[in-house]
């Protein structure tokens, strides 16, 4: 039993992937599908799969429309790193766009800097609700990095039962 718990809490990286793509809206679907495929071996529940896809979609959309101000330049890049540590998924989404002046204000539910564009202001709130942890770091003129993590799948519970 002790062995199983140690195995579950291990910090060892078990898989990793990194990708970089142009900051265009077509890539929002691509990014969330890539992460969905990456976590499939962990046997996520439908709900977990959907949670992760929504959170990724929010973060990438933010990079495209806020970080790079929706300008659709091929030189504007979003990089995404996914790391698995046992059954915990860690995602880092980084842009080198305009940055966020007041991160705390940006994270307020319903706050949006672009109310004219039909934005709901729920992006960060969804990331927070659908993932286990969310960290946002930003510097004006340099860019923004969003880090999220979530425990995936019920495999570890089944292991401990056995």
């Amino acid at each position: 039993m002790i062995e199983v718990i140690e195995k579950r809490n291990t910090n060892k990286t078990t898989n990793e992937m990194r990708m970089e793509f142009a900051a265009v809206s077509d890539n929002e679907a691509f990014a969330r599908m890539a992460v969905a495929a990456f976590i499939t071996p962990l046997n996520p529940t439908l709900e977990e799969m959907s949670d992760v896809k929504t959170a990724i979609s929010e973060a990438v959309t933010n990079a495209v429309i806020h970080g790079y101000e929706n300008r659709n330049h091929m030189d504007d890049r979003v990089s995404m790193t996914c790391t698995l540590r046992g059954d915990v998924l860690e995602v880092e989404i980084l842009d080198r766009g305009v940055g966020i002046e007041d991160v705390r204000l940006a994270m307020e539910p319903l706050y949006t800097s672009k109310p004219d564009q039909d934005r709901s202001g729920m992006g960060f709130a969804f990331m927070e609700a659908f993932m286990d942890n969310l960290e946002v770091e930003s510097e004006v003129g340099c860019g923004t990095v969003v880090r999220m993590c979530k425990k995936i799948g019920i495999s570890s519970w089944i292991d401990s039962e056995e």
Partner: protein
Amino acid sequence: MEDYKVIDNYLMIRLPNEIDHHKSVDISTKADRYIMTKKVGNVVFDFERTTFMDSSGIGIILGRYKKIACFGGKVYAINADSRIRRILLLSGMQNIVEIISN
């Protein structure tokens, strides 16, 4: 079957399989064109085909609500599965949209 259909005073919108920012711009533009030209008072969002939605979907609903609410119009959501419902409720949409269960 058409994605946009006017029945009496209602604009029925059959939403796509996935609703994100990429798709939302087009949906909002088309919906607004119907609202303006056909002078419909109410909007019905049909989620039958929809398996994925992020906060852009909330943006679509809020935006259309703002356009019709001042004339007494109402917004409805039909055929929403548990995932879509969860996203609607998390955003407090139950005060704005009438979520109709089958």
